[in-house]
């Protein structure tokens, strides 16, 4: 290992998370997901893997979905982040329609993948408000579930889109 010749400075970041302005000094190596969970206590966003494969940590960064385990907190400086915890705020305590659809269609079993699934589904529907079943399956390809078996997850997303299952497929 090379000797530490530089001073390891903390970097100041300022961003908006779930509607609130936050600012902190963080180590540059801190991941966005760590920042959300460990600094802000937003444990609704979870970590399911070590390889950026599972999508459980999905949040929105400036309005589009990202895997927060694969973004540095410093890269989010000046940005707006929405987590699963901030999704329903606009609807004043009511569930977001996609959350509602997951409940309605039994889109979860253990629930571990669910925050990421819902955040990705919201992104997908923002880009394509009436997807076919195949478009849902493709759009959710970066989110893995070990228990539900995907069928009800896909059903939930189609339900949220106001589509009866397979109507367009």
């Amino acid at each position: 290992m090379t000797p530490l010749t530089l001073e390891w400075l903390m970097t100041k970041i300022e961003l908006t998370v779930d509607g609130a302005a936050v600012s902190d000094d963080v180590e540059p190596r801190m991941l966005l997901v760590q920042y959300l969970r460990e600094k802000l206590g937003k444990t609704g966003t979870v970590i399911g893997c070590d390889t950026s494969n599972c999508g459980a940590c999905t949040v929105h960064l400036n309005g589009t979905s990202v895997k927060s385990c694969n973004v540095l907190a410093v890269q989010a400086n000046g940005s707006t982040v929405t987590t699963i915890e901030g999704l329903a705020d606009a609807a004043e305590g009511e569930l977001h329609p996609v959350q509602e659809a997951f409940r309605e269609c039994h889109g979860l079993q253990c629930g571990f993948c669910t925050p990421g699934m819902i955040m990705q589904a919201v992104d997908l529907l923002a880009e394509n408000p009436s997807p076919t079943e195949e478009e849902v399956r493709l759009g959710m390809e970066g989110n893995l579930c070990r228990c539900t078996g995907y069928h009800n997850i896909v059903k939930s997303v189609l339900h949220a889109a106001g589509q009866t299952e397979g109507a367009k497929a």
Partner: protein
Amino acid sequence: MIPVKFDYLAPTSLEEALSALSEHGDDAKILAGGQSLLPVLRMRLNAPEVVIDLGGIDSLRGIRDDGDAIVIGAMTTHHVVRDHELVREHALLLSKAAAEVADSQIRHRGTFGGALAHADPAGDLGAPALALGAQFVIQGSGGTRTVEADDFFVDLFETAIGDDEILTEVRIPKHTGWGAHYEKFVRVAHQWPIVAVAATVKGSIDEARIGLTNMGSTPLRARATEAALAGASATEDGVRAAAEQAAEGTNPPTDLNGAADYRQHLARVLTGRAVLRAAGAA
């Protein structure tokens, strides 16, 4: 796992980024979208002392029309490349390939320049860039140079970009109206291909350009198949016969996903499919 400690620089101009790079030399690493670099740092396969983030340099983002070429800024995301009107019109093959990179979340962050600079032989953008005859604009403190696609990819994870240089943009000669298809064979839906074929054809068929992904240490052209297809008609038998030559001159790896001869078989089959789809015949 989290990365080893590093210092973080966030330049807002290319000049600042280049001077930071020449100051820190070997100890520094460029950060684009981070979708390949962060996994590398987290697995501690690399431990730079300084990370230079290009995210704040607006001039590196965007796609513009430049006469006989379109020019894609290095920091343009896969998501933007996939959907951009200029790309769909003049380099449809790139749009098709960008759509197949990873998953939606990673396409929102990962960049065109980052993927090409990373030069993973299994990466999906090298073969289409090669097939389209891309030109790579590389800048160092000494000035700017342009490298042809044939000279850009040097080896596994190795390109013509020097340690003190930054890939700023990629010029793609216009292939207006050419049909295109990217045929990717995967084991896991949102991951790198075992083999993939990037095909774009003019008419059916005046000219064909074919790039192969993961058939050697760099992206390759299927030159013999291209020659056999020039002026041929896009019939299933004719295309499949030409595709029999697709694996000529390749040297694919053997790994857990497949042996070299299996990959050569895949290259022949996938080339047939890709060309037929590009020509609108399948």
